[in-house]
């Protein structure tokens, strides 16, 4: 009898959860689709030339933390120097690299140490040296050498010496679209009745793409299965998820690979939190809370343009480590800001976004696993209704594939980056296989993340080994402590 009651409760919870999840996804997709079309058409009429020659263009500081990037640092800086924007500086933060990252950058760009007074507006590990170039052509380049403290700490150090009105936090090994700054600064300039405090752009997977001198010259669908699954996953997340949250004014996460922030607000809210591995989400939440507490109208805007290309992990081990960290980062932020939970004081963020993250991002893999375990249990006792099970399974599968297919369609109609039939076919095939061969791993890594966070109290980043963009597949370690 007790088992019967418990099983009924479990089934109801899982069913209601699954139904609500589907409903949320459908609503988010509809909102995203509408927003994407609006953006697509607005882009057609936007004259970016005006910003390139304007004294009105706000100053932007690009902050790129680098740790053991010796093999790619010179190329990466070159790519950053070629961005199309009239008024920007580049700050490379050497976060105590153990290799010759600093030396290579100094030699390549003729840098020399300059006397510099640092105003530690935000706490960070000691800044040892500041370098500027002897060449006028590189007068917007600064290299900062500091004691190792992790990515968040490196970004804080960069903010402390940044001169721009806005700063953009990037991963130095990502490829930034030359037009990225113009596009990301636009929402700050068009807003009239509220203050835009941060913008983020779409991150794309660059595996198998051709890169030359830090510029993307040919776009391809990744050859390996794992990165290809991540293409689908990123499409879903960026085109069907974040865009809708931006529209609802409830965006909580701007990817660490590329985000533009209002420096004044970032400093006032305390900068990046160096004790978390989810610093990218945490700073957005804290900046939003700061504005909400001040009762000022604000927004965090998402620009649905592929502005940053990054190398996705292609081995299970590295991918697992990345997802484990993402999970721990999200939990950390959610727990640090638990006062947001259904708190109307924080508007959409408190009532919708935060509960969404709790129920559908953090708890999803846990509930999914519980559902599977429960099913195994009733299967062992010969209790399940196999017909209902198979129909439900088919439904969930087709819903999931439909969702992915729509993400591919949205991406295709708006950006038309994958032009060959074979590319579309590969993506479609991946979307059909992904629920069986990729999703279980993602769920497992998320569970491991929970375990590591709550039981092992793990706080480290973990190893993030990349193959490198060049065809020779040079190993380049990008590990942050």
């Amino acid at each position, binding site marked *: 009898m007790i088992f019967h009651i418990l099983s009924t409760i479990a089934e109801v919870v899982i069913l209601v959860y699954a*139904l609500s999840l589907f409903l949320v996804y459908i609503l988010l997709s509809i909102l995203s689709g509408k927003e994407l079309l609006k953006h697509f058409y607005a882009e057609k009429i936007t004259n970016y030339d005006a910003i390139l020659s*304007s004294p009105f263009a706000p100053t932007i500081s690009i902050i790129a933390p680098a740790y053991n990037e010796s093999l790619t640092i010179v190329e990466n800086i070159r790519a950053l120097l070629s961005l199309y924007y009239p008024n920007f500086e580049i700050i490379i933060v050497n976060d105590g690299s153990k290799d010759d990252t600093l030396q290579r950058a100094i030699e390549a760009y003729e840098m020399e140490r300059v*006397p510099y007074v640092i105003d530690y507006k935000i706490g960070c590990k000691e800044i040892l040296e500041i370098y500027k170039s002897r060449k006028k052509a590189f007068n917007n380049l600064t290299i900062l050498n500091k004691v190792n403290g992790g990515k968040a700490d490196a970004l804080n150090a960069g903010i402390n010496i940044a001169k721009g009105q806005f700063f953009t936090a990037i991963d130095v090994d990502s490829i930034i679209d030359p037009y990225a700054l113009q596009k990301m600064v636009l929402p700050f300039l*068009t807003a*009239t009745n509220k203050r835009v405090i941060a913008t983020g752009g779409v991150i794309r997977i660059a595996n198998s793409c051709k890169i030359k001198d830090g510029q993307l010259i040919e776009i391809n669908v990744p050859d390996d299965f794992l990165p290809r699954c991540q293409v689908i996953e990123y499409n879903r997340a960026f085109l069907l998820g974040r865009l809708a949250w931006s529209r609802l004014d409830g965006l909580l996460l701007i990817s660490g690979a590329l985000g533009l922030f209002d420096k004044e607000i970032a400093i006032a809210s305390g900068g990046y939190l160096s004790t978390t591995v989810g610093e990218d989400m945490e700073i957005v939440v804290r900046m939003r809370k700061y504005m909400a507490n001040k009762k000022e109208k604000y927004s965090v805007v998402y620009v649905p343009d592929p502005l940053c290309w990054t190398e996705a992990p292609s081995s299970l081990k590295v991918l697992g480590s990345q997802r484990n960290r993402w999970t721990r980062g999200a939990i950390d932020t959610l727990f640090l800001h638990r006062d947001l939970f259904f708190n109307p004081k924080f508007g959409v963020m408190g009532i919708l976004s935060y509960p969404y993250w709790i129920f559908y991002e953090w708890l999803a893999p846990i509930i999914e696993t519980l559902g599977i375990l429960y099913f195994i249990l009733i299967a062992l006792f010969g209790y399940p209704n196999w017909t209902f099970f198979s129909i439900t399974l088919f439904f969930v599968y*087709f819903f999931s594939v439909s969702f992915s297919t729509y993400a591919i369609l949205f991406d295709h109609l708006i950006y038309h980056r994958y*032009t060959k039939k074979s590319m579309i076919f590969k993506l479609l095939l991946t979307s059909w296989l992904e629920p069986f061969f990729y999703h279980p791993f993602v769920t497992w890594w998320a569970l491991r993340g929970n375990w590591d966070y709550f039981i092992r109290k793990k706080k480290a980043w973990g190893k993030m080994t990349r193959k490198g963009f060049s065809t020779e597949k040079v190993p380049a370690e990008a590990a942050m402590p």
Partner: protein
Amino acid sequence: MRIRFLTLSFLFTVFALFAGMANIQAFPEKAKHANSNTLSSDKSFDNQAKDSVVIAPKSEASETSGTLEPNRNRGTFTQRLFPGLSSENLRKLLLDWKNLFPDPIRSYYVAMVGKAFFFPVALFLMVLILALMGNLLVVTGILFLSNRIMNYERKEKVRLRIFFEKTLTDLMLQVTNTQETIQILSHPYLKENYNLLIDILMEFQKSFRGDADRQIIELYQGMDLGQISYNKTFAIFFYKQIQGIHELANMHPYHATEMIASRLNDPDDIVRTESQICYPHVNKEFPFEFLSILEMPFSEWAQLNIYYYIKIHEMPVPSFNKWLGSGQINVVNFSILMITLFQQQEHAEQIIGKLKVPNETTRHLAIVACGELHLFDSKAVLKESFLGETAKNQLEITRVFQSIGDETDIPFLETIVRNESIPLRLEGCRTLYFLGENGKNHLERINQSLNDILSPFIAHIKDQRN
């Protein structure tokens, strides 16, 4: 706290309702066990299915079946879902589709259809599955078809662009005249691509001046392309409207003046901004007159674009002091910026007056203007307001003294240098250092009196790269 409690209560109520409904709809199997008296347990599964398919009024069993009683009425669910279609017909229809499936799956499909009619949720899910499968097929088809069309269009667009550009270049170089060009471009196939032609005409117009510019406008008007642009301004989609406004503003200002003026205060942000940007195109004589009638916000983006337009067209600009009293704070700020950029020093008095307004951004722009316009008369006001200013404006005031300061300001700058704020101290040192020999000497004396605490600051500002 109370509101949060209410929100939670509401959520739980919705949750409970939803859960209750789900229980009724989704667990007929348990309902069967829980109410074994309502349904003979020795009936075969298929027989049960048949029984339950009947869209019947309340059965005898259902009248006695307690809380899970709605389970027995589930037959009406189908009716509610597909009004006018009986569930028996639907079942037959679904069973007829069995031939669509290969042999190994067919029997499973038939069994599933049979059982689905016992479980309305399952039936509903099956219909959804079929819909999703159909949808997938359609979307996949759209993907491949659209890819083909987009690739074709891309190539065609390149081909047409080359053709249009060549034709227009011939006109510019007087290989052909306007009439001949109109004739060439009047080909029925090309008519379908006049939107592209208008884009190219606008690009040409941006690059050419004088006779060439006039020829392009002549061609646009001669081909009656203005009508296409005009029609766009009434399109449903905002971007089409704006395209139309842009085209008319650039190619046929006379036609567009009234329309643009009427949209300067449009509630739609994008339409309003683009109308504001286009206004100087259609009213070249008084390009900024619209500032007087602005009631809605004037975005920085619109300001930036207007400045770009008047810069590249080297248009004469009016005195901006007339808008310094505007009720729109964006208009006031824009006017101060314009006064600064166009060095309208004659408005010094009004600018100095803006140093005391409540809006921080306006004060900031006024401080910058004092420096850029070398308004020496502003020094007293700047010094007086220094202590009450925000940190950002204090820093700007210190910077401004690099342009308007002299030796008489050394005591004021000394107080800044002795300030504990690092940015202020740094900027104070810079200003003193670049004030001439006396400034440098004074800075050195302060440094000695402070036990060389300023040495790193002086080293910092001496390096021009910092």
